[in-house]
């Protein structure tokens, strides 16, 4: 099972600054272990929802660094709103996690 993401969503005005850490090997298919190539294994799609409504989508390649880090900004958010993030990789594995939007400091 994939490890949980760590998601932070902090309010800046009515925009939620969303920062996501994902645990994923993002194998390029070019790394050798012993004399064998480790097969391609990488996240392909990411989507984010604000209270269940899709607000951000990404399609990505194996060139994203291992244990990916992304940040994006969602409009029209308020404290207590739910931000959820889902990724799917090339092996069909999937992971979703959720956090609450916190007031900015």
């Amino acid at each position, binding site marked *: 099972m994939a*490890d*949980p993401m*760590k998601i932070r969503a902090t309010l800046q005005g009515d925009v939620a600054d969303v*920062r996501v*850490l994902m*645990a994923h*090997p*993002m194998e390029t298919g070019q*790394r050798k*272990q012993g004399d064998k190539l*480790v097969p391609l294994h990488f996240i392909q799609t990411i989507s984010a929802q604000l209270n269940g409504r899709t607000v951000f989508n990404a399609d990505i390649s194996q060139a994203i*660094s*291992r*244990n990916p*880090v992304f*940040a994006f900004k969602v409009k029209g958010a308020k404290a207590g709103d739910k931000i959820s993030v889902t990724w799917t990789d090339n092996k069909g594995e999937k992971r979703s996690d959720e956090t609450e939007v916190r007031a900015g400091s």
Partner: protein
Amino acid sequence: MRHALVLGVVAAMAAAPWPHALAQTEDPVSAEFDKFREVLEKDNPAELWEVKGEQLWRTPGGPKKASLEKCDLGLGPGVVKGAYAQMPRYFADVDRVMDAEARIVHCMITLQGFTYAELAKAPFSSATRTPDPVSIVTYVAAQSAGMKFAAPQGHPKEKATYAAGKEIFFYRAGTFDFSCASCHGVDDKRIRTQPLPNFTKPEQAIRAVLGWPGYRMTGGVMHSLQWRLTDCFRQQRFPKPDYTSETLSALMTYVTVNANGQVYKGPGIKR
């Protein structure tokens, strides 16, 4: 070729106006690294291991099905907050000085029933596996973020361990006739583009302990000071020290005490 590239970049950057105060004390390449190190630190994958480590700390495990919540890191059983910044320290129950990871391993053996042999078999992270003590020490270290290093020197064994660490630091041997001090005992040395801090000076000693445990960008793995110092022995072509041995605790005591009074920023991100 490589040097030509780096020098070219240095020249190009030196020509450009530099808004950061850092530029006055550092070369432009290091200043650029530092600027983006802040960006990288802001969202550090090390946090993924903090979460994992906390779970491992709280969840009953091992043959004895016990959690680590009764583990004494020096501030009383179960007290995690601030413990990392006050280690290595003397523990009467083992009559030796232990660094954080050595103490965690000790607790996994005494409380959870693991054996040293199984924990020491493959103690460092690979691309596909992070040993539990590494995740746990990452969690423990995070609970000292923002606190000043205060490794105690009150007990005679703590003083003796510092002295032993100092001796190890300056001990020249091996096929290269090398010591830790060969790289880290003088100012302004570097390996390729990386400056090497002088750990004998308090203001630079902090760089020996700051950012560890650290998420290493090369390979994308989590490493602790146990790994870092063990790898220094390899780089010096010394025999490999035993995992969680007194040798490693002594070296950690030397560099941490030298950094006492300076603020620990929590698990870091490393090249």
